[in-house]
């Protein structure tokens, strides 16, 4: 699809590397789960009801002024590779990509907004931004939700709030996630502590692609699990005043400690990563993530000044399997991808010299 080809070439505004605390906070995300009244949830919808929900939501989403240009992708019709590109960019979930039946996603041109139709719930509204900016994101999604509510009746219960297919999302239907880059805490062996503290606060700690994924390349996603009994603002305030600033401070301290006490070891790590990326002939996704992670830390600590941060951020996205195949313009198997990934990264780094 032309839309996806275009998307695959860009970095996406949420990965611009800008925004508050962006040395450690990669991106912030808020999503709201909503269901229409008058329809069963999707597990109990037959295909004609599913189509009806799809058409209705498509219609309203595309014919309402959401304040930005919206592109629409019919996921059911989209080729596998295109779906994968959207997953790699966090615009749709893996579940949405691999699901069945009529479903789609509306994406704003800047990719800071995505509305998934017929995922686990009828509608999932998501806003994304680079760095730590949950408060402006909440304002944005709150407004969007209000606009959509003028057109749509969402299932709501006096006691339980917004009703969702899974009772773990009921109430506000909100999921707040912050993606963190914590290489120094990882090197210092302190991540277990962070993870335990987060779990004690009823927060989930996950890998790069959310639910069910391992943390790779020192990236961790922290999100709320409680959606009932606390207001959206309270949930966000917990992140803004307690959770995230604490972890960010902790990581910054760990980075400074590394810089002071283990300068040579740190430099070695960073420059080895650079050397490998500059010269390797095959690279797996996982190895690449780790190497880029070290470069990213090196840049933020001022140890490596020749590469723009922008290039690194871009490579995080482009080095993923579906993106590489889009760039290459053909399907590649695992081994071919590893070779092309190494070629591509060598080329990109050579441009910066």
């Amino acid at each position, binding site marked *: 699809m032309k839309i996806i080809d275009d998307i695959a070439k860009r970095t996406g505004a949420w990965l611009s590397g800008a925004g508050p605390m962006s040395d450690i906070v990669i991106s912030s995300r808020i999503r709201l789960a909503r*269901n229409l*009244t008058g*329809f*069963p*949830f999707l*597990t*109990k919808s037959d295909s004609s009801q599913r189509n009806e929900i799809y058409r209705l939501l498509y219609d309203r989403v595309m014919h309402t002024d959401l304040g930005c240009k919206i592109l629409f992708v019919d996921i059911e019709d989209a080729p596998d590779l295109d779906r994968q590109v959207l997953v790699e960019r966090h615009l749709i979930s893996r579940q949405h990509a691999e699901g069945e039946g009529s479903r789609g996603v509306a994406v704003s041109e800047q990719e800071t907004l995505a509305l998934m139709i017929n995922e*686990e719930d009828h509608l999932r509204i998501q806003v994304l931004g680079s760095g730590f900016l949950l408060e402006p994101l909440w304002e944005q999604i*709150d407004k969007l*939700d*209000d606009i959509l*509510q*003028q057109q749509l*009746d*969402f*299932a*709501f*219960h*006096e*006691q*339980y*709030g*917004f*009703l969702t*297919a*899974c*009772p*773990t999302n*009921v*109430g*506000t239907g*909100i999921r707040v996630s912050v993606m963190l880059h914590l290489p120094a805490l990882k090197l210092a062996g302190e991540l277990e502590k962070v993870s335990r503290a987060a779990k004690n606060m*009823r927060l989930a700690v996950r890998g790069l692609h959310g639910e069910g994924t391992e943390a790779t390349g020192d990236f961790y996603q922290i999100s709320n*699990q*409680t*959606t*009932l*009994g*606390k*207001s*959206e*603002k*309270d949930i966000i305030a917990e992140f803004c005043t307690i959770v995230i600033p604490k972890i960010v401070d902790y990581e910054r301290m760990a980075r400074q400690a590394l810089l002071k006490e283990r300068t040579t070891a740190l430099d070695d790590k960073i420059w080895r990563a650079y050397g490998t990326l500059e010269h390797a002939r095959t690279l797996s996704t996982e190895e690449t993530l780790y190497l880029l992670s070290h470069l990213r830390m090196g840049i933020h600590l001022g140890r490596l000044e020749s590469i723009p941060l922008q290039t690194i951020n871009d490579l995080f996205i482009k080095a993923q399997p579906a993106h590489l195949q889009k760039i290459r313009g053909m399907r590649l198997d695992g081994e071919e991808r590893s070779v092309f990934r190494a070629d591509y990264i060598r080329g990109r780094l050579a441009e910066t010299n």
Partner: protein
Amino acid sequence: MNITCQVCSKAMATVHLTDLMGGEKQERHLCSECAEDEGVIMKPKAQLNEMLQKFVMQKSMAQELADLTCDQCGLSFVEFRRHGLLGCPHDYDAFKKALEPLIERSHEDSVQHVGKIPVRAGERVRARQTLARLKRELKQALQEEKYEKAAGLRDEIENLKPS
């Protein structure tokens, strides 16, 4: 040990208790009848009955849960437990008894929505939410021993209740 009951002073004491009252050890000797009256022991017959009753109740509760089915979407509670997803908005009411403990567990003991309300949902929901919020604040104020604040909140709650 041949002691008469301390309560009725008639029958032989067969129940011997050591209580700690205000830090002091106190021995008490009761006959079985007086001990039953004081709720210290239970009649064996009653005990068995109660156990049986409990057992039957549990059985029928489990049966009741197993039989729960939503009349709107046709989903059974058993099916829900298998997949973790509900079939329609009405399930929240249809399965309330069985579902609420699960909801409570996964949301830090809460079963009342606080936060955004649909624009069209109306005043009733809003009032209910305000009440829930005030009650929560009251609880917290009491925990923190901020009694003046608590008193203010209590008045507010009183005012909100329909007269």
